[in-house]
C-alpha cells in the first residue's frame, strides 16, 4: 500500500505568491473541482486544473488526462504545443479518451487508486448524472489513500453536491496587454465556491507566470516589477462580513 503520510509535507500548495489563496491550499491528496463559469470558459477551467496539477507535482511525475472520445468536447482536441506554451511538458501527460462516462469514472478510480500518477485530470462535459455523490466520495477516499491529486474539470454543468475538497468557478479574465495592445498571458477569474471545512466566497484574479511556474495577481505590464515583494493578489471579499485574506 502506498504510504500517504510521506506526502504530508508536500501536500500544501501555498506558494509565496499565493497569499490570496487563503488558508485553502489545494491538497495534494484531495479532489478539486473546477467549474467553467460560462459556456466558453471550458478551456480556462481546464487550464487552471492542469496548471494546479503541474504546480503541485514534484520531479516530473506523469499526469493522466481523462476525457470522453465522443461528446461535444471531442470537437476540441487538446493541442500539445499549446500545453508546452503554458509550461506544461506534454511528454509527462498521458491522454486517455474513453467511450462513455461510466468507463471514464471506472478508469479514473483505477488511476487514482494506483497512485502512480501525480495528478489525474478528469474532463466532463454536461450534467454527468453518473458522477454522483457516491462516485465522488469514492474518488476522494482513493485520493487520500494514494496521495493522488484529482482535478475534475466540468463545463456546461451546475455544481452538484460532491465530496470534493475544494470547488472553484473559473472564467477567463482580461489579460494584461502587451505592447501593441496584444493579448498577454492567461488570466483567470477564480471564485472559491466551496471548501470542505473552511471559508468560501473568495474571488481572485490570477495570472499564470510560466517562467516561475506560479500564479500571481495580474500586474500592469508597464510598471516595473517590485523586486522581492511578493505580488499581492487582488482580493475581493465575497461579503463584507468575512475577509478572506489577512
Amino acid at each position: 500500500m502506498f504510504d500517504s503520510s510521506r506526502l504530508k509535507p508536500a501536500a500544501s500548495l501555498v506558494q509565496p505568491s499565493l497569499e490570496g489563496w487563503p488558508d485553502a491550499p489545494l491538497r495534494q491528496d484531495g479532489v478539486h473541482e473546477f467549474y467553467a463559469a460560462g459556456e466558453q470558459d471550458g478551456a480556462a477551467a481546464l487550464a487552471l486544473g492542469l496548471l494546479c496539477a503541474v504546480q503541485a507535482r514534484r520531479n516530473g511525475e506523469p499526469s493522466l488526462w481523462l476525457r470522453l472520445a465522443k461528446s461535444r468536447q471531442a470537437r476540441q482536441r487538446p493541442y500539445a504545443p499549446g500545453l508546452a506554451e503554458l509550461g506544461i511538458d506534454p511528454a509527462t501527460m498521458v491522454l486517455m479518451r474513453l467511450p462513455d462516462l461510466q468507463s471514464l469514472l471506472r478508469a479514473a478510480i483505477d488511476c487514482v487508486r494506483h497512485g502512480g500518477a501525480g495528478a489525474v485530470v478528469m474532463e466532463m462535459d454536461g450534467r454527468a448524472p453518473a458522477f454522483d455523490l457516491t462516485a465522488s466520495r469514492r474518488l476522494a477516499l482513493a485520493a487520500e489513500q494514494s496521495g493522488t491529486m484529482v482535478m475534475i474539470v466540468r463545463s456546461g454543468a451546475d455544481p452538484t453536491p460532491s465530496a470534493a475538497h475544494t470547488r472553484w468557478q473559473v472564467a477567463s479574465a482580461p489579460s494584461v496587454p502587451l505592447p501593441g495592445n496584444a493579448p498577454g498571458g492567461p488570466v483567470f477569474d477564480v471564485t472559491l465556491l466551496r471548501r470542505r471545512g473552511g471559508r468560501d466566497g473568495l474571488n481572485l484574479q490570477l495570472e499564470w507566470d510560466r517562467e516561475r511556474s506560479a500564479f500571481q495577481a495580474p500586474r500592469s505590464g508597464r510598471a516595473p516589477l517590485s523586486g522581492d515583494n511578493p505580488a499581492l493578489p487582488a482580493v475581493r471579499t465575497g461579503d463584507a462580513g468575512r475577509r478572506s485574506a489577512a
Partner: protein
Amino acid sequence: MREGAAPPDAAFALIAKQRGAQRIMALSPAALTLGLSAGMMLADARAQEPDLAALEHRPEADHALLLRLAEACERYTPTVAPHGDDALVLDLTGCFDILAMDETGVRDDLVARLSRLGFRALAACAGTPDAALALARFGKRSVRELPVAALGLEGDAHLALGRAGLRTIGQLADRPRAPLVARFGKAMSIALAHLLEEQDRRITPHRALPPIWVEQRFAEPMATVKPLLGVIERLAGQARDLLVARGRGGRRYEVSLFRTDGHVARLAIDSGLPLREPADVVRLFRERIDSLSDPLDPGFGYDLLRMSVPLHEDVSEGQDRLDEEDTGRPDLAPLLDRLQVRFGAECLHRFAPRDEHLPEYADRLVPAASPRQPWPQPEAGEPPLRPLFLFEPPQPVTVLAEVPDGPPRRFGWQGRQHRVVRQEGPERLAYPWWKTVEATGPTRDYYRIEDEDGRRFWLFRHGLYGSEKADPRWYLHGVFA
C-alpha cells in the same frame, strides 16, 4: 462438408449461378450415390431427382471453416497450413514425443475428433506434404500404388503417360528420369521427387510460429473458467524460465484455449514494458477475461491450453522508460497496461512533437508505451502563442474587419458576437508548397484575439485578400486558456 444442417443421409447439392444457369458445385455423400456429379445443371439433376435439395454455395464460408479447423489442428503442431479448398497440411516433425502418440495415433485421433464434429475426413501421413495429400486423396496405402494423376500435372500429360503404359507412380519411379523430363518437362520431375519423398517442400503455416510457447494438456477437459487463471499462471511461470534464459521479456502474450469440440478461443494481452513475472501476466489476463464482451464459454471443456509469446524484447532496455526520475511513486506502466487491456489500445496516448509547418500537424498522438520525446521550450517572456484546444475542423466564423486585409474587429461564433479588444497578428503561415510540386493552398493569417470578456481565441483568414481570394473566409482554429 459439414453435415450439421441436414440429416447425414439427406441428398442435397450446393449450387452457384454461373452464366445464368444454376450449376451444382458440390454434392452431399448421399447425393453422390444417386449418380449425380458436380458440374451438372440443377435443372438436369432435378429431372433425375425431383426431391434434391439445393443450397447456395458460399466459398468464402467454406474457407473460413477451413481456417477454423486449421486453428483447431494447432493442438497437434503449430505448423498448420490450409491447402487448396479442402485440405490441411500439418507438419508433425518432432511433435510425437510431446503428443505421446505415433503417426497412426495422431491420424486416428484427428479423424475421430473431426467425425465427432460431423466431418468426413481423409487423412494420411507421409514424409512430404505432397505425398501425404496424394495418399489421402486417392486412398492408397503406399506412394508406389498411386495413379499418375497424383502428380497433378497440367494439360494432357496424364493421358500421354497412360498411353505409354505408365499408370502408377511406382512404374514411373523405376524408369530413368532424363527421358521423362525431356518429354514432360521439369515440373514432372519435381512433382515426382515430392511424391517419392526425395525432395521436401516448405509449408507456410497459417499463423506465424511463436518464438516461445508452452502448453498444458488436461487428461480430463476443464469445464469451468475458474481454474483458468491458475493454469495461466503456471504456464507464465514456464514461459518466464524460457524468457529468462534468453534475457528477454514478453511484450505480447497469447493464450489459446482448445475446446474438446474443436473450437479455439484466443486471448491476447499487450504490455508497454517487457513482462516476465507470472503475477503481472495473470493480472492482465484477468483484466482481459473480465472485459470480454462475449464471456468465455467452456462448453464441454478445454483440454489444451497453450501460451505463446509472439513479441518479446530485451528486458534491460526501456525498463525505466515511463519514469525516468525516481518519484517515490509506484510505476505507472502496469496501470497503463491494465487500462489498455480493458479499454483498448486506441484510447491511451501520449503526445509527440512533429516537425510540421501547419499547426494542426505539429503534434500527434502516439501509443502510451512509446518513449517520451522532448518538446521545444517556449520562448521566455512571450505569452502562449498556441492555443490549448484546437478545433477539428476549424469552425467557420463571421468576421467584421475595418479593412479586408486587416485584423478583425468583431466576430460571431455559436450565435454570439465577440468584440475584439486586443489582438496580435497576423502570423502568416504559407501553405507548404515545398513539399510537392503541385501542392497549392491558401495562405493563412493567424490572429490572437481577446474579446471584451477576456476570452482568448485563435482566428485565421483563409487566403490573402486580393491576390489569392476575393472574399477570404475566416475560421476559428483554437481557444486559449
